[in-house]
């Protein structure tokens, strides 16, 4: 039971730390693209590690008492983790593409090489 609990604390700490960094970065960065960068760090890395902490917790309880409820808990959390891993980067990419096409330049940017490459 001990090794799973140590893994649980480490994963929970990493997840909460990255969520904190992402929220502070969302508040402090200057334009849309850098804010999206910080927010995507929070949504992918933080959510993945908090879900992994829940999976480690259910494995530890399953090893300890052998109740089949915790096996089902681990399986459903793995499905939720797969959904998060698939959907979050796709949504972030869609937001970035919409922000670029609606004409928002990054701060202190002078030229737009993506638009020039499309015009060729």
């Amino acid at each position, binding site marked *: 039971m001990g090794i799973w609990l140590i893994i*649980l604390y480490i994963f*929970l700490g990493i*997840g*909460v730390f990255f*969520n*904190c960094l*992402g*929220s*502070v970065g*969302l*508040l402090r960065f200057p334009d*849309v693209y850098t*804010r*999206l960068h910080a*927010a995507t760090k*929070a*949504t992918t890395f*933080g*959510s993945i590690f*908090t*879900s992994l902490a*829940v999976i480690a*917790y*259910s494995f530890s*309880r399953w090893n300890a008492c052998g109740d089949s*409820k915790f096996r*089902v*808990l681990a399986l*459903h*959390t793995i*499905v*939720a983790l797969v*959904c*998060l891993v698939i*959907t*979050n980067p*796709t*949504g*972030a990419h*869609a*937001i970035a*593409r*919409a*922000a670029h*096409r*609606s*004409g*928002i330049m990054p701060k202190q940017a002078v030229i737009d090489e993506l638009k020039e490459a499309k015009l060729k």
Partner: protein
Amino acid sequence: MNEFFKIFIIPGGLLLLFMFLSLIRLILGPTTPDRIVALDTINTLVVAGMILVGAAYEEVIYIDVAIVYALLSYIGTLYVAKYLEGEAKK
């Protein structure tokens, strides 16, 4: 309520605090994509908090709510981004 309840409910409260920081960006944000980024961040923080609270209460059906919510919030974000893209093209 066992001794593991405290381990999962306190990070849930911290995620609520981070949601409040993202809500400040929703208030301040000068352009519309800033606000959509804040919406996306609050969505995923709510899903992560739902998984943590479901593990704290040891109920399997609470995790299913988090799965449904992750897929639905993805569709909402994608639809708003599509609308913003189509509006710029006119």
